[in-house]
């Protein structure tokens, strides 16, 4: 899993690329939650997780996503998701994620929602 970080209009955007699953975790100690927490410590309060280039997610990936959301929520920050592939959307829907995290079709819509 590769992470690309960008800040736009005061919004921390985390673009992910690859498969979000446990198998890769030991080799890649960086997680979504770790990156979100680092930015929370710096006072960031708006987050978009961009899944455009994520084509596989397992329950570990869902756990990392939920943990990121909880970390943001605990600091009074807002975290939203954008650009889900059909497969990732399928998994998130079955896990009930849309009940707790706002999902946008694309990054631009997610950015606009913060204005």
């Amino acid at each position, binding site marked *: 899993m590769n992470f690309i970080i960008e800040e736009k209009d005061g919004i921390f955007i985390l673009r992910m690329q690859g498969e979000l699953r446990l198998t890769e975790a030991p080799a890649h100690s960086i997680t979504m939650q770790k990156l979100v927490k680092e930015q929370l410590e710096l006072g960031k309060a708006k987050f978009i997780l961009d899944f455009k280039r994520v084509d596989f997610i397992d329950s*570990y990936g869902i756990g990392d996503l939920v943990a990121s959301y909880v970390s943001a929520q605990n600091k009074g920050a807002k975290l939203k998701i954008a650009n889900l592939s059909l497969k990732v959307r399928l998994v998130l829907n079955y896990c009930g994620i849309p009940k707790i995290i706002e999902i946008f079709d694309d990054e631009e819509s997610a950015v606009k929602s913060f204005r």
Partner: protein
Amino acid sequence: MKRLPMESFTIAAQLAEIDRAREFLRNSVRGLALSEEEFFKLDLSLVEICTNIILYAYPEKKGEIHIEIWLDSDRIYLEIRDSGIPFDPTQAQKPDIEDIIKAGQKGGLGIYLSRTFMDGFDYQRRKGQNVLTLMKKVKSI
């Protein structure tokens, strides 16, 4: 009726081996007209079950996972066996995402996803092994 000869594969119960199991699945169903979604559901279910075995079945961190796959008519069967601690995943409760958030848990969804994505999810304890048989109906073979 189309039949796929039964194919078998064994991996060490280690996270790094999961890619080999996925490759075995991909090669076994090559040539079948599975939709992207059908294959994804099989792939994810295999990953989740193998991960669960690797994390919990062998406390001594040493063991194997045996995988067999076959096709019968419009059904793909995936049998996953381990010789670890007896565990019946069919008894696992459906998790609630809001409870998971409240409890601050990171896991608990893997078995649920696998079970939900399959059309059959059968467990037996047989000859000292956990034997889990997943079945997926497929539309166009």
